[in-house]
């Protein structure tokens, strides 16, 4: 049984078992690196991707939930050579240490900035609450998101 889904703007027909968590489909069948395995329980946000504009934990979202919907990952926001607006802000603020959480951070923040062009500091912090960073890079992550919140994504 196959699943049809749009990923980063391109249609895909996926062959993985529909019960497979999306994370393993992204990393396996699609060979995408952005979403990371952190906990497998939706507790850390390292696997965050954007589904129909909303951040979801790909580690607890089965492939079967995706039929016909539109999925985006950090790979769809830019490349290492041509980073997108939010990625560029993370780069400018050097908002990473080990960086394992960062793709999930960017995915979650991107969804916020698409919904609310100019979120307040309080809104940013509350929105980012589900995602964990262990290196303590939060202050820089906030600075990067704040910059885009002030100037807008476009």
């Amino acid at each position, binding site marked *: 049984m196959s699943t049809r889904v749009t990923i980063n703007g391109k249609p895909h027909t996926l062959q*993985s*078992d529909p019960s*497979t*968590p999306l994370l*393993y489909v992204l*990393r*396996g069948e699609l*060979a*995408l*690196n*952005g979403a*990371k*395995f*952190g*906990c*497998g*329980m939706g*507790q*850390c946000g*390292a696997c965050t991707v954007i589904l129909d504009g909303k951040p979801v934990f790909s580690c607890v979202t089965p492939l079967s939930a995706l039929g016909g919907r539109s999925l985006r*990952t*950090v*790979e769809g*926001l*830019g*490349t*290492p*050579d041509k*980073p997108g607006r939010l*990625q560029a802000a*993370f*780069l400018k603020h*050097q908002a*990473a*240490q*080990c*960086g*394992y*959480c*960062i*793709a999930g951070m*960017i995915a979650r923040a991107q969804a916020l900035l698409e919904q609310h062009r100019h979120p307040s500091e309080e809104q*940013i*912090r*509350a929105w*980012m*609450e589900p*995602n*964990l*960073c*262990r*290196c*303590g*890079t*939060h*202050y*820089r992550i*906030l600075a990067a998101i704040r910059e885009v919140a002030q100037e807008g994504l476009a």
Partner: protein
Amino acid sequence: MSGADLSRRAFVKGGALVLGFSLLPGAAFAEFNGMGMPPVADALLPGDLNRIPWLDAWIRIAADGKVTVCSGKVELGTGVRTALIQVALEQLELEPGAIRFIGGDTLLSPNEGFTAGSHTMADSGTALLHASAQVAALLRAGAAARWKLAPDTVLLRAGRALAPDGRSMHYGEAVAGIDLHRMAARTSPLRDPARYRLIGKSLQRLDIPAKLAGGAAYVQDLRLPGMLHARVVRPPRPGARLATAGLDAALAATGQLPGVRRVVRDGSYLAVLADGEWQAVVAMNALAAGVRWEGGAVLPAPDAIHATLQTLPSQDIEVLRRGSVPAAGTEGARSVTARYTKQYVLHGSIGPSCAVGQLVDDELTIWTHTQGVYPLRAALAELTGMPFEKVRCIHTEGSGCYGQNGADDVAADAALLARAMPGRPVRVQLMREQENMWEPFAPAMVTQVRAGLDAEGRIGYWDYELWSGSHNERPGNAGKLVPAWLLAKPIAPSPSQPMPMPEGGGDRNALPLYEIPNARVVNHFLPVTPLRTSAMRSLGAHINITAIEGTIDRLAALAGADPVRFRLDHLRGQPRARAVIERAAAMFGWKAGARARPLRGRGFGFGQYKNMMAYVAVAVEIAYDPDRRQLSILRVACAADCGQVVNPDGARNQLEGAIIQSASWTLNEALRYGPQGIASIDWASYPILRFSGVPERIEVALIDRPGQAFLGVAEAAQGPMAAALANALAEATGVRRHALPLLAV
């Protein structure tokens, strides 16, 4: 374990470690065990050149002029790769992008032991500074000889040697005929620090762009042709053994699951190998559900752990005795006593540990995020019974580790599983609960302090004791790796050893830097404690600096002195210590005698990491809500002196991270465990700081010292930040808490 096994292990261990170092003196052997380093070749050579003195171990120049720089230190997410390259670019007169860098590969890079203890810039950075400067001099000399000019007339610019008349040649031509396999000299023709182009500049980190956009950045992202995915099944608690009843049926049933290529069992060691990663997870879950475990260690109750630590057999090491301290009961009126405690803490890497292994034609390659490729290689050679030189460990980044997490253990899994499927690359990643339950925790600790003022109101004496298990259970022998315990022929860990001063382990930063005429410090090292423990950022400095700085605040109050003034008055001979304290106090707007508003608190903390690395002072202001037991960090002012700053933004990033990470440890973190085992199996049962707890404002200032030595900085703020928080909470509430975490119920 039988005596025969023990003697075999001792032989293998000796063989593994001594190979190539057959005339190792006793002291060097101990060093090798502690930090995994080869012995000192010439103590007067700068940085790690003293152990790896060959220039071509660090710098290689190809015939086409391309420059490769090698370091034994690895990128753990702190940005050291970028900083090390900056150092080499500076001295070699190269532009950014012109260096190929190899960090941590047993085939290609020098053996600098572990990347740990904020040593990278001091050890490897210093070695590269000098090696690069010496190679630059050889390049000038080589070009000058070809042109028949005096060497001091030749300039190096952007990869070319230039003659005064405009002729030029690239570095490959300049080095032709010069053998870089030569001993480094003790002194180097360093560039003038006042004219540095790149050292001191905030170059952007080289690793970040890929990490932001899904580039292959981690060992987790490695995809080799034909690679299988593996998962392990670990016992529910240490010491538990696999029951044989029903085992064969469970193994057979797992082998029938979709995609499963192999089910591995060796004693109590269990793993599955499958084509797909999720197939491996499904098979792991099925196997775990189908097997039974027997026995295992009974853990103590968390509320009894500190009393237990103080009764365990100890090696009592007096690390300081100066003058004399009063006998118990004769301390006098103006004195303080306190007992501080700390619970076990998780490293808590966001990404569970991962490794990839492949056995091809009797040669085993392991891609690993270990902190020490050479020590790991020795342990894996012992584990697999393979010759040393047939095992290659290649460092590949993982999630931040902050010390010894599951990285080495999962590398052992990769070695065992690659051997089970010769030819096929095998990627194995731990699950969240496996990482949490089996990582070596930061040790629980107890410290006791007695200190008092003299007639002039200065600190007259200081008496300090601490109790701690091991902060260094790194490999070491193969028995330091969890998988080795589970095999049918298990390998036990070699005995735990205290880490000697001046670095120290539990006693790291136990010696106050303050000028005190009478002092005694005793480290009660506990070789065996109930839980497996090892290194986590700053080791004992986290609680020791908290205890020292809390006691200093209380002594200042007894003396009627402002705590910042009191600190400065006890650091009269140490201008660099005074400078960071004065700077942090000025940034914060610290006012002597000012009283915080109700339920607000100001706190100060200071330390020089290991009393020999970076100086850090931190001032914080907090608000405390007693009804909700909630602490908000309003602002943090931090000043640091890490000598010559190589990459200022990188250093600030590390200090900011340390401030936030330490706030999380200090306020909230304690491993949950009980007689049945480890209960902190996920982020719900081990909460760490989230965005809502991040300080509203963090300011970090660096006091640059051009031309001075690089001082390690990444772990230098953990202690001062913890101390500042404890002191601020004491001011806000009027009650001083001595148990970490501070907000524990």
